[in-house]
């Protein structure tokens, strides 16, 4: 009986079930859980984003697996879920960021951009003939006034702001790790360390070549991708604590 009811209401995104749920949006969240996790940590010195690129084969070029994306000079995005859906939202965010520069000759604020993206996502929960985005984003950056910000987008189109968050598979465990270990006073390097440590919670072992880390710091207002030799010391430290 339950199943039959659900069958009737889970086909269109724009149809509520009798108990007020949007099944397609909930299914989109399930799609995100199937993706590997990404982590974002906000510190006073900037924001760190980290993602693990799980490779299906040693023959695949690791750089072709994109989980962290630069949106503008001062904003980057980590994704979890459908990569192709993430690409669409990242392109949308890039265009919105440039639109802000054209319109006001100013870099877009992180909150404004996050809300532009979530408003766009929301439209895909209220229209017929479309499906919601099967992806969550962690949008990290530095506002024009120098404030570091970190937002999460969800398939419903709701924006959330975080001090630190994990998106994607195994989220509860990773979020628990962040809750236990986040310290507001930590520096950006500490933020990178915590992001990697958290990511390691859901992995058999991180490799500096396959893990991706991007930072946006308040000094330069610039997105920077860390090189493997900058990531390796953090991973060595992790192994040290494990043993």
């Amino acid at each position, binding site marked *: 009986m339950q199943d039959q009811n659900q069958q009737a209401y889970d086909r269109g995104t724009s149809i509520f079930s009798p108990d007020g749920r949007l099944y397609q949006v909930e299914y989109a969240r399930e799609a995100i859980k199937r993706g590997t996790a990404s982590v974002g940590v906000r510190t006073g010195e900037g924001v760190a984003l980290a993602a693990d690129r799980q490779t299906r084969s040693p023959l695949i070029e690791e750089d072709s697996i994109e989980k962290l994306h630069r949106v503008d000079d001062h904003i980057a995005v980590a994704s979890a879920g459908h990569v192709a859906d993430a690409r*669409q939202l990242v392109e*949308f965010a890039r265009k919105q960021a440039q639109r802000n520069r054209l*319109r*006001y000759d100013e870099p877009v604020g992180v909150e404004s951009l996050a*809300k532009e993206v979530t408003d766009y996502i929301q439209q895909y929960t209220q229209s017929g003939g479309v499906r919601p985005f099967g992806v969550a984003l962690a949008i990290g950056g530095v506002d024009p006034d120098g404030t570091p910000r970190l937002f999460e987008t969800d398939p419903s189109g709701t924006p959330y702001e975080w001090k630190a968050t994990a998106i994607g598979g195994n989220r509860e465990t990773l979020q628990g790790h962040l809750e236990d270990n986040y310290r507001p006073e930590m520096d950006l390097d500490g933020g990178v360390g915590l992001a990697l440590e958290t990511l390691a919670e859901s992995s058999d072992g991180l490799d500096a070549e396959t893990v991706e880390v991007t930072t946006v710091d308040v000094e330069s207002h610039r997105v920077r991708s860390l090189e493997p030799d900058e990531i390796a010391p953090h991973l060595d430290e992790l192994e040290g604590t494990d043993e």
Partner: protein
Amino acid sequence: MSNFTDPLTGEDAVSDPYAPEVGGIETADAGQQGNDENAVNKTGTTTVGISTQEGVAVATDRRASLGGRFVSNKSVQKVEQIHPTAALTLVGSVGGAQSFIRTLRSESDLYEVREGEPMSIHALATLAGNFARGGPFFAINPILAGVDEEGSHVYSIDPAGGVMADDYTVTGSGMQLAYGTIEGQYDEEMSLAEARELAVRAVEAASERDTGSGNGATVATVTDEGVEIETFEDTADAAAE
């Protein structure tokens, strides 16, 4: 045209950076460029903006004319508040300038409620330039006067969308007379009260000799506290304040 469309409305999801968000270019009468020049109220005008460390002084005359030969109105308010700490002067076609002011005011309000803080004056000037260039507000040449965290600003905005910052600027048909008054008198260190008097004197000089300017003065002072606008039947009274 972007690849992103709103699935509900089918409209472009990345909206035109050069157009107003509310009341687009399409809704304005595109044929107004072809209107009979002599039937369009113009301000002729002298509008002056002088920047100081305390704020910006703005002075304008109050005359509207038809074809520059008939005074069609003697009490036009040619400076309006468009932002908590910015004002815009009304120069050129009255219809174009009024519409421009209303549009910028609503854009500024929208920005403020969304962002939780007012637009910077540089952003406001950029937006004004974009609208002047791409919008339906033909034949306008206003001055934007504003104060923000960066300090006091005066911009002139030309009909093609050119945006130029300066310490002081003048637009309108009495421009050369007003500039003649200000040149040599302006001083970076001058007080807001001194700048206010100089701006009024400049409008007064233009009112004496320019047929498109006259009928007293409207004076605005813009500081980080806000915008204050006063009207005077006689420029001499305005200077005496």
